[in-house]
């Protein structure tokens, strides 16, 4: 009985807030007769979204593919590179300040440069951009997972006269696996955002970002909002999938690792 | 007049639901002014709950509590008591002196008066040199001394302590026990002290209240019959050992009926 009460207590307030928000929005647009170039009513947005669903889906696929390709590539390269980083400390000292600095910079502006290096219709600049962004996120996190291991575990392995490679295999990599999936969860929304924002710099016009700007330029704001909704849904899907992956890949967390050791 | 009067007090959590807990049932206790009383018992016996009822951090489900002739709420509002916990609970962003000044700030004391009182308190716990240090620069024992100084800053007549020495090593612990007694003797403070340690309870107290769980209640009150002032010599005193044995047996009586862990026998 109390379980149901707890569940409602948790779900009800955000639900109420969400519904209230939409109602107020709709009322404000209708009541104050707000011009469409300022805000479109939720009802209109939904209309355009369902009406143009094919187009939105198509654009989402383009942006989404770019994000996905970059995510996968960046994750793989990042993970591989982090192995090198954990092995050679000087490499780590070189790369870490670079990674920290790049975190602060709006790195996506490099797309302007990348666009020149490839054909104008290519999606590759966006993918390279996403790969770069994901690469650094995964690199830093997995390196942390490989180096910040329980000191006692390492001492134990050394007492078994285990080689560095064996320690890597049996202690560091299992320790780093949850970090990898956490990095993926962090990188997934970043990948979508980067794929998105990269489209503002010109080049191929098939993605969600370009559609939003072109619709605004044509004063079709409600349609633009529909694409925005599509973008948000895309980002949400990426996040949810990577979160689920994270949960599946690390059942029970450290407890499982202890069990394996026994 | 007794400092604390507890009559037929019960405390029930989650009454009526599947996870109802009878933390305390039918508790009667009277603490005289200037007395040092320990509460000891296995996990779940309600000793911390009882302390918090006195402190007005919890309300009793039944019964009444009178502190210094007032309701516990009034005693809290009047700052009649000081409280100390197992984690020293010092604010890491304040200096040692400023930590002691915290209750005084809330009472609206002026800046120079606060500073003066804080330094007096530090003198009392022999940490005057560390007034402008930060808590993380001090050892665990020193942090607890600061916490005690803070609890005494408003010069309360009552001190409520929840295993304040639990996180310290044995030697520091014994040292702190002596310090605490010196301070309380000088100030005439009434103390209610929750602990897991039998020797600690016997060393510090006039009376040891032995409690048991399921439901939480007082099983026995042991009078500690040690003559004169306590000192390091007391720890070799036969009366001291007799007290320990008495408390241990009272607890064993509890143990016979339940399988309990959590009592230190050092």
């Amino acid at each position, binding site marked *: 009985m109390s379980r149901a009460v707890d569940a409602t207590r948790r779900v009800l307030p955000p639900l109420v807030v969400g519904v209230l928000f939409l109602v107020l929005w709709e009322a404000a647009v209708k009541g104050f007769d707000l011009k469409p170039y300022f805000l479109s009513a939720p009802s209109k947005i939904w209309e355009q979204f369902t009406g143009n669903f094919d187009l939105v889906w198509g654009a989402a696929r383009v942006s989404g593919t770019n994000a996905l390709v970059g995510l996968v590539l960046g994750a793989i390269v990042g993970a591989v590179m982090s192995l090198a980083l954990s092995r050679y400390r000087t490499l780590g000292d*070189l790369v870490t300040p670079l990674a920290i600095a790049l975190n602060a910079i709006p790195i996506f502006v490099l797309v302007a440069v990348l666009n020149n290096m490839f054909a104008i219709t290519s999606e590759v600049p966006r993918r390279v951009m996403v790969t770069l962004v994901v690469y650094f996120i995964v690199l830093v996190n997995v390196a942390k997972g490989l180096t910040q291991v329980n000191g006692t575990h390492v001492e134990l392995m050394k007492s078994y006269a285990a080689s560095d490679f064996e320690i890597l295999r049996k202690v560091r990599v299992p320790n780093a696996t949850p970090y990898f999936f956490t990095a993926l969860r962090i990188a997934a929304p970043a990948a979508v955002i980067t794929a998105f924002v990269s489209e503002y710099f010109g080049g191929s016009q098939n993605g969600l970002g370009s559609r939003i700007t072109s619709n605004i330029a044509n004063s079709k704001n409600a349609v633009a909002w529909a694409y925005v909704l599509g973008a948000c849904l895309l980002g949400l899907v990426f996040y949810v999938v990577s979160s689920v992956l994270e949960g599946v890949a690390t059942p029970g967390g450290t407890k499982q690792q202890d069990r394996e050791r026994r | 007049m007794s400092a604390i009067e507890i009559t037929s007090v019960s405390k029930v959590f989650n009454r009526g639901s599947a996870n109802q807990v009878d933390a305390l049932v039918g508790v009667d206790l009277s603490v005289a002014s200037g007395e040092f009383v320990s509460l000891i018992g296995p996990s779940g016996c309600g000793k911390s709950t009882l302390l918090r009822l006195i402190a007005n951090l919890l309300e009793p489900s039944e019964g009444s509590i009178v502190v210094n002739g007032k309701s516990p709420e009034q005693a809290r509002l009047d700052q009649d008591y000081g409280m100390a916990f197992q984690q020293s609970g010092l604010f890491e962003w304040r200096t040692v002196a400023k930590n002691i000044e*915290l209750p005084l700030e809330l009472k609206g004391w002026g800046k120079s008066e606060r500073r003066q009182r804080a330094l007096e308190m530090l003198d009392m716990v022999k940490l005057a040199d560390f007034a402008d240090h930060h808590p993380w620069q001090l050892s665990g024992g020193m942090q607890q001394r600061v916490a005690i100084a803070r609890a005494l800053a408003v010069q309360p007549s009552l001190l409520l302590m929840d295993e304040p020495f639990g996180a310290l090593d044995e030697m520091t612990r014994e040292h702190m026990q002596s310090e605490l007694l010196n301070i309380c003797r000088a100030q005439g403070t009434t103390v209610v002290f929750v602990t897991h340690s039998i020797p600690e309870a016997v060393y510090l107290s006039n009376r040891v209240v032995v409690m048991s769980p399921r439901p939480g209640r007082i099983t026995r009150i042991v009078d500690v019959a040690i003559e004169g002032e306590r000192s390091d010599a007391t720890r070799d005193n036969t009366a001291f050992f007799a007290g320990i044995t008495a408390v241990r047996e009272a607890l064993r009586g509890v143990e016979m009926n339940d399988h309990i862990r959590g009592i230190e026998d050092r």
Partner: protein
Amino acid sequence: MFVVSLLIVAVVWEFYKWVGPADGGKVFGWSLLPRSNDNAMPHVWDMLSRYGRPEVRGSDREIWRVVLAGAWFSFRLALVGFVLGSTLGIALAVLMARFKVAERGILPYLVVSQTVPLIALAPLVVSWGGKLEIFGYEWPRWLSASVLGAFLAFFPVSVGTLKGFTSPPGASLELMQSYAASWWQTLRRLRFPAAVPFMVPALKLAASSSVIGVVVAEISTGLKGGIGRLIIEYGRQATSDPAKVFTAVFGAALLGLTMAGFVALADLWMMRNRPKETAA
């Protein structure tokens, strides 16, 4: 060390130029390799020397002045956005800490919002510029950029601050209760100082988010005076003047670093009385 890694990047760049195909290449049939001729990938020294030369032929304004001015313009917008967003974020965190209902209703949205590309709203917000009037004041175009920056900065700050507000251990809260302290007193003396270590990473994220918001807004409109516009402009001129766009890109990098440095200084000041964290 940082300088060394930059040098290495430069070396790798030049190496690819030397080794890579001039007109781009195909790997497994995909046009993956970028063009390495001087037009697409200028030499590193060309990029650096470009700073000394004038922006436009015939103009006497050197490009480094132009880029610096653009970066400074954008920096001010980002700063306004950062301060605005952070302040509102903290205010909302206080509200949520005070009223549990508010926390339960709003927090889920705040958390979700950090996974959703809010930046998609950029063109919309930016389109308000020049068209909107509030109480007789026309919405200036630059305000859209700051508003977008504020919007992006707001979310991490409110989530992080709330986390900090709820971080003090039970014993500390009981202590304040034993002092009969009011909710506001507890907020001021316990929750707020306890929240600072949680606000520091949130503010760092907010700083970079506000820079991103401002730059994206500038790109969407070509906001005059900002570094975003310069990047787009110079990007278009890349075929004739390849090194130019790099000057603007470095300018944007400088912008980001300055903002990060500013927040880092603020963080140092905020954490001045705290124990130094030792690396694990």
